[in-house]
């Protein structure tokens, strides 16, 4: 393993910039301390690490985001998407940090397309999955896909979740959120259509009081939102375990499952503020992808991911 700054910074427990990952890095509460550092003690994939510490000067692949005159279509089946070449992106199982992907990889490739119209950039990802998994209940997990962009294109961040001081901007589409967009009730009946349940707080008290029974929602946890306006969440990360929902949510998209294949579009404005990628026509940056197979138990760090590819935005 070569001498690199990534584990050093993480292991020192120094807080990252702003508040992102502060608690994870410093363990401000109780004994949940130095988790990241502890995780790194069993760091095993040295070749992954070397790759990150010394990123290749030339990307093996560059994805061209073609400039379009019209709006970026949300429908993955739109002819404008199909007209673009599909760039194959190779995926690897995440085995750097616990919980590692403890199963044989089910995917070796996904396909990526990109376009922009000067205001929005869109990504179109397709991959094979024999089963649609869009429920999140006990012991069941959802399919999902994430697009990762460096906040700053100079000197790419670590390819998996960034690193302290070099945040990455993430767009995360989830099949369960897509399902919620398409008419799920947000009750136990989504998972069990015939389930019978007794009265719940909102049936017998005003909304303000009833809220107290939903702490994750009150805490502003994006996972707990009742009414979804987008199946895509915008996040920022500065290393493993630091993923944090962006304050302002602007991303949009749509996922469609047909014949054992997911096709997902993720769209985000090109102008970015703090902790967001800021893109402009003619610029170069990088892009990475991660795919989760919910039916196989993938969630969180149990995922398949791709290293950086180049991303060129057509002038």
């Amino acid at each position, binding site marked *: 393993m070569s001498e690199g700054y990534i584990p050093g910074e993480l292991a020192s427990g120094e807080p990252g910039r702003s508040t992102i990952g502060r608690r994870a890095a410093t363990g401000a509460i109780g004994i949940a301390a130095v988790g990241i550092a502890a995780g790194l003690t069993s760091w095993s994939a040295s070749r992954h690490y070397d790759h990150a510490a010394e990123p290749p000067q030339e990307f093996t692949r560059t994805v061209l985001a073609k400039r379009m005159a019209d709006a970026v279509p949300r429908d993955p089946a739109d002819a404008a998407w199909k007209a673009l070449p599909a760039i194959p992106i190779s995926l690897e199982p995440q085995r750097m940090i616990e919980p590692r992907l403890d199963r044989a990889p089910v995917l070796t490739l996904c396909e990526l397309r990109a376009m922009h119209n000067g205001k929005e950039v869109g990504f179109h990802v397709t991959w094979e999955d024999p089963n649609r998994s869009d429920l999140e*209940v006990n012991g069941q997990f959802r399919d999902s896909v994430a697009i990762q962009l460096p906040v700053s294109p100079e000197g790419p961040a670590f390819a998996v979740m960034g690193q302290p001081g070099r945040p990455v901007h993430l767009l995360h589409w989830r099949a369960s959120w897509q399902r919620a967009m398409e008419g799920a009730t947000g009750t136990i009946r989504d998972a069990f259509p015939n389930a019978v349940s007794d009265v719940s707080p909102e049936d017998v008290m005003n909304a303000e009081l009833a809220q107290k029974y939903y702490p994750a929602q009150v805490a502003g946890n994006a996972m*707990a939102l009742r009414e979804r306006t987008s199946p895509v969440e915008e996040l920022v990360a500065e290393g493993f*375990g630091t993923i944090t929902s962006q304050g302002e949510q602007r991303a949009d998209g749509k996922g469609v499952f047909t014949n054992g294949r997911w096709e997902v579009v993720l769209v985000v404005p090109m102008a970015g503020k703090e902790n967001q990628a800021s893109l402009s026509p003619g610029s170069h940056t990088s892009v990475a992808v991660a795919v989760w197979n919910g039916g196989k138990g993938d969630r969180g760090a149990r995922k398949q991911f791709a290293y950086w590819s180049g991303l060129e935005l057509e002038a």
Partner: protein
Amino acid sequence: MAEVSNWQLGRDMQYPYDAPRPNKQVAWVFDTNKCIACQTCTIACKQTWTWGRGQEYMLWNNVETKPYGFFPTGWDVKLMEMLGPGSWKDGVYEGQTVFEKAPEDLHVLGWQPETEDWSHPNVGEDEPAGETDRGTYVGSIPHDVWFYYLARICNHCTYPACLAACPRNAIYKRPEDGIVLVDQSRCRGYQECVTACPYKKVMFNPVSGTSEKCIACFPKIEQGLQTQCVTSCIGRIRFAGFISPPGEVDEKNPIDFLVKVRKVALPLYPQTGTEPNVYYVPPIHAPRQFLKQMFGPGVDEAIETYTKAKDDPELLGLQMLMGATEHIIHGFEVEGEVVKGFDAAGKELVSVPLREPSFIRKYFDEVRDVYLHNIT
């Protein structure tokens, strides 16, 4: 992995964090001999904390019948299967804990229950072990036909497996009282904690998309009050309080007295290595082999001491103090035939007679030529 000390195992063990003990550690004592599985605790907990949407099958407190009752289904059978045999020698556990036996890609050895496993909280209720036939009479202790009730909440472990497994550090143990909580703003519903908890006391809420668990009624604990499951218990089987750190004993503290002085209350499956903080008085009538697997090597001594409680004023006194006040009893004292409980400042909370007045009638009424069912 760090080396930490686990007094319940009688040895040091591996844990993912160098976890200092909290300033205070909340703890409970449950007397299984007095539990009648009325589930009042279960309902008190549910009505207080988990009647929202997505919590339909969530019971932070449950009471299950042993050996055939489980919530979730088969939780401890699977745990024992996973851990494999592990023997005790002179009070030292020689087997492996859930941390020491963790697979290479994880911090904790665990398993993920299916949704259906959470759907049958009353499975196996009142189902006895052993064979019965018409006319079977159970007349000896231990019983050859037996079951008992095991009331369960989160153990607020000293070395929580849920915390060890969370990749986001969304679970924390409060330094002020040792209560283990899931930070509802950080949790992203990976369910790693559900998989890791050997007692299966973290549960996933599909509506909030986060995992949730027993919060030890922290708003009550912070006010010096015992938890809902304790104060609602009509069988008066429970104490909630604080346990002193290993090597320290406060003989006037009810929890310390029961766990460390008389040693009648034992941890649940201590071999997990999490150092659970709910301590059980084992049932006197169930087979010792089964009980030793569940409560460790202290079972014989605990039962021997417990069955002599009538001649032990302090042990008897503590039994009378169970359920006698909503406040946490920090100190107790027996004066003659009365036991008193005190708060943290030494102020008297309650005083209770050691023995309730009783009159025992003959079981056969000669005048009316009839046997009497209730002779007290």
